[in-house]
């Protein structure tokens, strides 16, 4: 397989394995460019070291006014241009074109709204009727973090969860990202998917998970003092597990229902393990001015660590 030696370089650099259908394409372009870099680096370094040794003053007391006369560098630069052009025109541009223009058909896709807030992710799913309920910011409260309108028919069966999102494996997922306050970034490293969540805009991203498991959702954009702890969880279920989860959620549905998420599913090693509480020093006073940035009651206290089981 041609992929094997190519993929080596990403693995060597420690990239975690891909878990989405399109992810290998992204890994490919990364591999290509890293190999390209590596070749240039090794080539030039060899030349560099040779020259430094060969033309040091002790070895070459008289410099040559002209130096290199051949046009080798032109060829080299031309080669660089060529390879970059191939990567660009052959891979990068079409890939992005496909990624943003060819969203999966929405009838087989699962559509989720992901709404960032300082410092958590709200997920809003349409429930069995497939219709999103109306949201209105004037209804936002601690118990109704998205301002879901209780009067809206379509919203009656909607699912709103905080922090943890369940999706079935092998189904395209469209996540429509937005934000309530500042810019966040909805990043799924294992899915090779990421998108800024910008207030005032709804920007979709999509991926098809191909491996079950639990994956971290990173907030990739500085969003305030709790940015480092703004962690979500993407749980990729088997279809059966997913149905069970849905069922359980629908029963709880309505705006008030979302219980606090568990951060780490069972069986997953706690991060950082040995060291005391991940961030906040025990007993450290609350920071900042509470009237300024108090976290909404349903998200972790700003200086509290992402909760450990």
């Amino acid at each position, binding site marked *: 397989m041609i992929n094997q030696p190519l993929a080596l370089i990403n693995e060597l650099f420690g990239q975690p394995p891909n878990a989405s259908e399109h992810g290998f394409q992204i890994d490919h372009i990364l591999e290509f460019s890293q190999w390209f870099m590596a070749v240039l680096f090794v080539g030039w370094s060899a030349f560099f070291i040779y020259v430094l040794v060969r033309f040091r003053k002790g070895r070459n007391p008289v410099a040559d006014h002209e130096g290199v006369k051949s046009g080798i560098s032109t060829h080299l630069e031309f080669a660089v241009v060529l390879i970059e052009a191939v990567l660009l025109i052959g891979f990068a541009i079409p890939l992005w074109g496909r990624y*943003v223009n060819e969203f999966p058909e929405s009838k087989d896709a699962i559509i989720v709204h992901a709404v960032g807030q300082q410092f958590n992710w709200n997920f809003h799913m349409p429930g069995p009727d497939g219709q999103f309920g109306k949201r209105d910011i004037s209804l936002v409260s601690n118990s109704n973090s998205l301002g879901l309108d209780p009067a809206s028919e379509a919203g009656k069966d909607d699912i709103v969860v905080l922090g943890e999102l369940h999706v079935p494996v092998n189904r395209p997922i469209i996540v*429509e990202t937005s934000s309530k306050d500042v810019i966040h970034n909805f990043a799924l490293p294992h899915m090779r998917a990421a998108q800024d969540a910008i207030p005032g*805009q*709804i*920007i*979709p991203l999509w991926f098809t998970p191909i491996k079950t498991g639990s994956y971290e959702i990173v907030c990739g954009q500085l969003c305030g003092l709790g940015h480092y702890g703004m962690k979500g969880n993407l749980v990729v279920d088997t279809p059966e597990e997913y149905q069970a989860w849905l069922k359980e959620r629908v029963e709880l549905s309505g705006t008030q229902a979302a219980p606090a998420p568990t951060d780490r599913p069972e069986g997953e090693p706690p991060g950082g393990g040995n060291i005391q509480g991940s961030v906040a020093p025990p007993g450290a006073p609350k920071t900042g001015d509470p009237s300024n940035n108090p976290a909404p009651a349903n998200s972790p206290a700003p200086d509290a660590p992402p909760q450990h089981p």
Partner: protein
Amino acid sequence: MNETQQPTATEVIADGHVKAGHAQEEPMHDDHSHVAAHVNKYLMVGGLLLLFTGLTVFLSYVDFGTHKMNMAVGMVVATIKAGLVAMIFMHLNAERQLIYRILVFTVFFVLALFFLTYLHWYDPISR
């Protein structure tokens, strides 16, 4: 490298900057008649600009079909006015190469700023 003469140190002093620094004492008389000839032109252009101002105001109340069209007309008139100021009052109709070069780049970059930000607004993936 086609340097042919070797100026000596005295030549340097004779025609280098040192001399240029003192050249300011003599007023440039030849300039004056030249300037006088332009005074009428400045007045005329001033009148023209006032006229165009009236025109802009007038045209803004004429319906050109769409608001976009009105915008375009307004901007065309404004550009003509700006062109007059730049060409005549700011002497850009007869300026040195160097100034043009600086301005060409500036204008290019401003347009790039306008155009590319517009393009990003026009071609988003948001819904």
